[in-house]
């Protein structure tokens, strides 16, 4: 079986043991790799009794069969764990170079268990694996840590946490290659709870392919698609992901002032066009990526990576800020402290609304960009009010008597698309198994960009089927592991053929998407086992009751009819529990016994 390396590295930090286990071929074929493999391993290793920040939680870092093959965007890896923010199953993934290098060191995945008695870092090379004292690195920021450990993108790649992870900020990121982040849901806090500061990898092993000639042909055809698609060949390289800022604002789906409005009058000032015109130094790319959406920007703080659309929104429209430099500096700081920019910005926006409503005593008010730097440092170091903000917006708002002002699903902050102006997006958030997330399926493509075809963004009937299909597809992309952006231009049939020629295992397109459905259902079972239910598949009341503004004026999210259609279409009962026939079809029945029958 080619494509996969066939080995999983297991490190128990409590006992300082390092072992290698074979990758179960059946498990690999069914769950592919990355997020799917991570969810399957997590199912066995972390039950409902485990606190996410206890030594019993595990951190699984997994590549997929496509990783390091040279296929477009085959640079990514996935981190799976139980989320300290949402309490759900979690996967977060990241690009750059580290994932490629880890696989080339000779492993498909790494499972980290236990808690080291004092700070350590792990070094993984083709020659061996070792644990090192990291006491001297504890407290250091991401850039400094990466440099101290010899970050060299073409040879030696560093993954680490910053102070936020060390201090168990619930939305702390795991950073790699200094500026790339696996951030959503707080995997950095889990890494910090294990006293693990960093993982350094070196390696140059080549991935074996079953039919290299056919693989390269599929890759060649995919290149044509990427070159021909204006989003991947022009818009993203020139303006970055923030190219959608003005587009989303124009349709009245840009949340502003903590979702009190769905348009932002100053959107143009924080758009992709503005970034390119004012602060952009150059664009850059992850390994094997022809899209190159990364922004390298320069401000008074220096030159670094960012901002992406979500970050420009989180510290911009969401906080009522139109100062692009302040937003970019907040981005730089989040990267260096090791924090998720979406949750950080959104939690500050929540604090601003709490303050303006007299529910919180603070200086944070909409528009106060001057407080970003101090607030972010306070969060990362858990100082003063920062200690409350470090818990995320839900726990913050709940503490101050207004949980409804937290713009979260399952305690994870939603990103920059308002469900009132994109009905399918609302269902996507509500049913997302890691909480409020836009990367569980590409409704932006369908409802706004017309990829592959435009559907009516305000239509309710039939939306559930699109959400389901795109959730299943996203699960596959996260498991291969490939960037979501490659799928803007390159359809699933290309990925299926690439995987088949790579591994020698037959994956008709339909079967590959079925594997995505299997992964989605396993994650659903995990959350059900944790005690989540239909009641958690919802949106903040604001989105269900308070009408949108701008071009979507008057609309609220019509979640209920979509949710009912979604459950039926997924083969789940009215409580959102997969029916036995569906579990049989997906070969999950055996695993599900404990969930369905206690």
């Amino acid at each position, binding site marked *: 079986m080619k494509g996969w390396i066939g080995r999983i590295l297991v490190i128990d930090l409590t006992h300082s043991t390092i072992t290698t286990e074979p990758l179960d071929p059946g498990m690999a074929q069914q769950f592919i790799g990355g997020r799917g493999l991570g969810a399957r391993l997590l199912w066995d290793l972390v039950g409902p009794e485990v606190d996410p920040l206890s030594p019993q939680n595990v951190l699984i870092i997994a590549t997929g069969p496509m990783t390091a093959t040279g296929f477009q965007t085959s640079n990514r890896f996935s981190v799976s764990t139980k989320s300290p923010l949402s309490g759900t199953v979690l996967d977060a993934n990241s690009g750059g170079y580290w994932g490629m290098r880890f696989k080339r060191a000779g492993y498909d995945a790494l499972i980290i268990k236990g808690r080291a008695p004092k700070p350590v870092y792990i070094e993984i090379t083709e020659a061996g694996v070792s644990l090192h004292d990291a006491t001297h690195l504890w407290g250091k920021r991401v850039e400094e840590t990466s440099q101290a450990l010899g970050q060299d993108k073409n040879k030696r790649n560093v993954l680490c946490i910053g102070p936020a992870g060390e201090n168990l900020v619930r939305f702390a990121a795991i950073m790699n290659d200094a500026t790339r982040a696996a951030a959503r849901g707080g995997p950095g806090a889990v890494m910090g709870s294990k006293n693990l500061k960093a993982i350094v990898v070196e390696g140059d092993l080549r991935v074996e392919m079953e039919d290299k*000639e*056919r693989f390269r*042909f599929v890759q*060649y*055809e995919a290149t*044509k698609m990427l070159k*021909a698609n204006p989003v991947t060949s022009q818009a993203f390289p020139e303006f970055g992901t923030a190219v959608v800022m003005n587009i989303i604002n124009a349709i009245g789906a840009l949340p502003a002032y903590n979702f009190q409005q769905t348009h932002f009058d100053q959107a143009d000032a924080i758009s992709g066009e503005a970034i390119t015109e004012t602060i952009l130094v150059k664009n850059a790319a992850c390994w094997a990526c022809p899209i190159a959406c990364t922004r390298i920007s320069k401000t008074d703080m220096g030159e670094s990576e960012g901002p992406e659309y979500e970050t420009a929104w989180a510290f911009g429209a969401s906080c009522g800020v139109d100062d692009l430099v302040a937003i970019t500096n907040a981005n730089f700081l989040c990267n260096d402290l090791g924090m998720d920019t979406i949750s950080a910005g959104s939690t500050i926006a929540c604090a601003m609304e709490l303050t303006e409503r007299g529910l919180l005593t603070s200086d944070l008010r909409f528009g106060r960009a001057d407080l970003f730097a101090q607030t972010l440092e306070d969060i990362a170091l858990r100082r003063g009010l920062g200690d409350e903000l470090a818990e995320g917006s839900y726990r913050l708002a709940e503490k101050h008597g207004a949980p409804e002002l937290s713009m979260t699903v399952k305690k994870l902050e939603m990103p920059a698309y308002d469900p009132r102006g994109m009905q399918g997006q609302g269902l996507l958030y509500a049913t997302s198994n890691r909480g409020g997330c836009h990367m569980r399926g590409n409704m932006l493509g*369908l409802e706004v960009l017309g990829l*592959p*075809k435009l*559907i*009516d963004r305000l*239509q*309710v*009937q*039939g939306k*559930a*089927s*699109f959400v*389901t*299909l795109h959730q*299943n*597809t996203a699960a596959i992309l996260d498991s291969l592991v490939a960037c979501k952006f490659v799928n803007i231009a390159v359809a*699933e*049939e290309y990925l*299926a*053929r690439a995987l088949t020629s790579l591994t020698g295992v037959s994956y*008709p*397109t*339909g*079967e590959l*998407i*079925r594997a995505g459905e299997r992964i989605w259902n396993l994650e659903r079972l995990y959350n059900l086992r944790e005690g989540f239910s239909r009641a958690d598949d919802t949106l903040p009341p604001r989105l269900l009751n308070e009408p949108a503004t701008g071009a979507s004026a008057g609309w609220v999210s019509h979640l209920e009819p979509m949710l009912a*259609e*979604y459950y*039926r*279409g*997924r*083969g789940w009962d009215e409580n959102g529990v997969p029916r036995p026939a569906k579990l049989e079809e997906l070969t999950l029945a055996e695993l599900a016994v404990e969930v369905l029958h206690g």
Partner: protein
Amino acid sequence: MVDERVYEMFRDIGRDMYVHNLVSSHGGNISVRFGDRIIIKRRGAMLGRLKPHDLIETGLEKNDSGVALASTELIVHRAIYKATPALAVVHAHPRVAIALSLSRDEIVPIDNEGSYLLKKVPVVSVEFASGTKQMAETLADALKSYKIVFLRGHGSFATGQTLDEAFQWTDALEEAAEIILHAKHLNEEMIEYRRMSDSYKSW
């Protein structure tokens, strides 16, 4: 009750299929999947002149009164939805492609657009080529790997996320078929312009 926006989509695609000569007056059918429900053209309705009452809703798996009104090919549409991730199916009778299907096991476009979009369209055969279980299973199986498949002597079955998308594959196939026919009539040696063009046959 079918949303007006859904009806408009059926009406426009149906009309375009007729205008493009992809079906005769009463031929072909189209459907979409909404969760565990299917909306499909009424049996005998003219694709080029669909009215709201020509859209029939029925179950993906479960029968109800809708099956008495639905297209003859409902069994095929259901099988395709159960076997593949398709959310829309377009069945047409493109004439040149039908002619080509009588003498070949696959239609491999030679024009740039056809190669780019379709790569290769397999041709499958069944004994009873209208509304049978054998036909449904054969097509559904082939559509797991291909977005458009041809039933020899009968017509195309295309899948997509939307009717728009499935229609695109159908129309692109007929265009590619016409170009193959024209090239054959010219009977001149072809100058290959595509790198790795032999690989399309193995798509």
